[in-house]
């Protein structure tokens, strides 16, 4: 596929050649509240054939840097200083026409979400071909043939068919391969990868990562790999740069970053990366502990409707959210439920929280419930749920005080007069200042909102708290603190906990037992320390393979 890279003759000695050089680059955004310093004096270099991993959390400026390199900045951006050079040519000095020649041909980009970065009304084949026609001067027919060959190299099994499809007819992994093929099409000197696996399922993400690795080897392409996931980057990058609030705080070869991190922020990030060997869990309950809750044969069917609705809306189909799930939850344990999207784990959470109709039965505290309607107030008080999306789990029109006092009033936990004190106690338990009681949700950060949601759940003095992917929408460093908070609360109050997530490494840190769900069925259930045993289900093993322990962290349990 590649004979020579970009404009460089194949024979020249190219090792050590600097492909991308960013020197003292600063970028501001002009906002209504004054200039915002997005990037401050960035100095970075990538040599030929090397991959630089750029790691940062949200708001760090890593995406702004990508736009700056591609020269695609919004109108309110002003470049304060510095240079960005591609093979020694300063990109800042180039005209718009010249930049159009460079984009797609000498620098190309792979985006985060293939569902939105592909044009929904144009065939996939045409979307690859147009780059070839534009930059390599091929005729449309030649471009389509070449495109097909490119798809084959990215691992698409039936490339000819895929060329004819529209994006909505391809899976997430297939679409991302198309985007990657397009990026490689013109043999660019530099490819920027902007979080290419974040929007994909675990197993698909692993496949795309492997693809990246293979192509890297084969083509010796120079790459800038942007991610928020330090663990992931450690597996594929040669050098790692850590960026925080517009400033590069660390830049080292990959292994040095983990073995001898220089900056405190880097150390915090490393510590926050979930590692199965670093247990944060509360002490395990005894083997003989009784069951708090038993689910027997629980199934959830969607699409069953009354006759009238069937006349008026005949398109609804019958699908299964969960299929014959039987699970027990032991007293005082933290049970992890793991699965990809569509596995049914959230469906089970909703059933347990009394939000979803189901078939089958639930046994809780000597009482058996066979339908949602039969679930009573006692159950609802004893079983609380915390949701994934911090922005949506709190009523934007209520103050924190009101949000926290609802369960207190509803279940009459404490007399009216003691409510203010109890609210103060709750806030301090989740490590939030007292003054937050008078704030509205939009005045809090994501992590703070999630703490309030947890406080609300514990306000009811429950026996079981269900956490439905509560850390998935949060930044890495915040994730770790929220997870730890939950474990501490569990230990202090003796509450049983079900923790639902797709992050296997995280759950191995927290849980006593782990349940694995796949396409609505429970496929595996085991004690955490038995995770890597041979008798594990094949899907469990596939999941474990997809998220190997972050490189360089085995020997350093904590920093």
């Amino acid at each position: 596929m590649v004979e020579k890279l970009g404009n460089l003759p194949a024979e020249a000695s190219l090792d050590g050649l600097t492909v991308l050089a960013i020197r003292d680059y600063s970028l501001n955004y002009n906002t209504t509240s004054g200039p915002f310093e997005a990037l401050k004096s960035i100095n970075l270099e990538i040599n030929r054939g090397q991959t630089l991993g750029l790691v940062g959390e949200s708001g760090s400026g890593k995406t702004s840097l990508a736009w700056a390199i591609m020269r695609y900045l919004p109108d309110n951006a002003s470049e304060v200083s510095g240079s960005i050079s591609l093979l020694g040519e300063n990109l800042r000095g180039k005209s718009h026409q010249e930049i159009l020649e460079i984009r797609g041909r000498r620098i190309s980009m792979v985006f985060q979400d293939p569902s939105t970065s592909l044009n929904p009304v144009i065939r996939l084949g045409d979307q690859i071909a147009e780059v070839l026609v534009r930059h390599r001067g091929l005729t449309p027919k030649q471009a389509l043939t070449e495109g097909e060959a490119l798809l084959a190299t990215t691992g698409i099994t039936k490339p000819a068919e895929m060329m004819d499809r529209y994006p909505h007819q391809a899976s997430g992994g297939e679409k991302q391969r198309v985007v990657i093929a397009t990026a490689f099409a013109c043999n660019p000197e530099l490819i920027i990868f902007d979080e290419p696996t974040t929007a994909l399922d675990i197993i698909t993400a692993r496949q795309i990562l492997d693809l990246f690795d293979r192509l890297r080897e084969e083509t010796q392409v120079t790459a800038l790999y942007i991610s928020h996931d330090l663990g992931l980057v450690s597996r594929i990058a040669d050098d790692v740069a850590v960026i925080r609030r517009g400033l590069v705080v660390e830049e080292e070869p990959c292994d040095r970053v983990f073995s001898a991190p220089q900056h405190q922020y880097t150390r915090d990030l490393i510590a926050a990366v979930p590692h199965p060997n670093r247990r944060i869990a509360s002490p395990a309950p005894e083997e003989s502990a009784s069951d708090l809750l038993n689910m027997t044969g629980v199934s959830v069917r969607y699409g069953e409707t009354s006759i009238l609705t069937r006349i008026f809306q005949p398109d609804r189909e019958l699908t299964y959210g969960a299929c014959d799930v039987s699970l027990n939850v032991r007293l005082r344990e933290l049970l992890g439920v793991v699965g990809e999207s569509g596995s049914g784990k959230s469906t089970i959470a909703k059933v347990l929280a009394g939000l979803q109709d189901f078939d089958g039965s639930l046994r809780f505290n000597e009482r058996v419930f066979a339908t949602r309607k039969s679930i009573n107030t006692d159950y609802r008080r004893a079983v609380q749920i915390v949701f994934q999306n911090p922005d949506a789990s709190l009523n934007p029109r209520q103050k924190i005080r009101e949000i926290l006092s609802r369960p207190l009033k509803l279940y009459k936990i404490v007399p009216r007069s003691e409510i203010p004190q109890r609210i103060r106690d709750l806030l301090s338990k989740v490590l939030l200042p007292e003054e937050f009681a008078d704030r509205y949700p939009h005045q809090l950060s994501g992590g703070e909102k999630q703490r309030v949601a947890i406080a609300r759940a514990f306000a009811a003095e429950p026996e079981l708290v269900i956490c439905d992917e509560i850390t998935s929408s949060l930044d890495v460093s915040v994730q770790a603190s929220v997870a730890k908070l939950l474990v501490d609360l569990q230990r202090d109050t003796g509450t049983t906990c079900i923790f639902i997530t797709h992050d296997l490494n995280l759950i191995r840190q927290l849980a006593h037992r782990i349940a694995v769900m796949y396409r609505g069925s429970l496929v595996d259930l085991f004690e955490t320390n038995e995770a890597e045993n041979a008798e594990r289900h094949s899907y469990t093993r596939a999941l474990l393979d997809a998220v190997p322990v972050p490189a360089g962290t085995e020997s350093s349990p904590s920093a």
Partner: protein
Amino acid sequence: MSDFVRHPAGVAGAILLTIIALAVLFGPLVAPYDPQAFHTTVRLQGPSADHWLGTDQFGRDLLSRLLFGARSTIAFGVGATMISVIAGSLIGVTAGVVGGWIDSVIMRGLDGMLAVPDLLFVLLIVTMLGAGTGEAMLAVSIAFTPGMARISRSSVLSIRTREYVLAAVARGESQRYIILSEVIPNAIGPIIVEGTIRVSFAIMIGATLGFLGMGAQPPSTEWGLMVSEARQFMYRSPWVVAVPGLAIAVAAMGFNLFGDALRDAFDPRRSR
């Protein structure tokens, strides 16, 4: 809500609305002349020092007639829309909250009513009730109710699946609490936006009815009626039709601009 002010459209709309509100409230008090008084010596004149907007075919001062007519025209629009917002919200919220086959039946009914173009619907009802301002207002309210019901319903449906509502259901809160405290305060935004924009349509339809003789009746100085009464003289003095006509447009525009700015204030992510 403070970034509402930064939108020039919103500011323009607010200014127009203020002028209109003043005209409605104080118009008859500040009008220089009696709207029905004939000044036969100065008929069909353009603007002058005595008559700022000119006079009509009977020499009546146009500015005064305009100020008196503001109430019939504007209050009509606001009143009709408010009734339809209340009625429509009740229907829409019920449909959205109850769900099931009741919801489907209501939706089908709404679809049927929405299949008839607005003006046609209004004309039919007005013919049934008889001409007159009150009847016309009722007709417009009835015609707008299905549209408002639909907006309310979809607003409620989108709030119903938000996680804070689910949290309340999981807690076992009463249906009453959930609707009043969790759903409605958050669903009201789009309803208000749509209502504000609808006022401009209500004003236009009301004026059209006045023009056709099916709405306000003489001696009302409703603006649409003013245009129809002066039509035969329009070639001699365009002011006599232009003044009320443009007043209608300005009023409708004010509500339109304000409503759009409200929409942006409630959902700044929308690209304009």
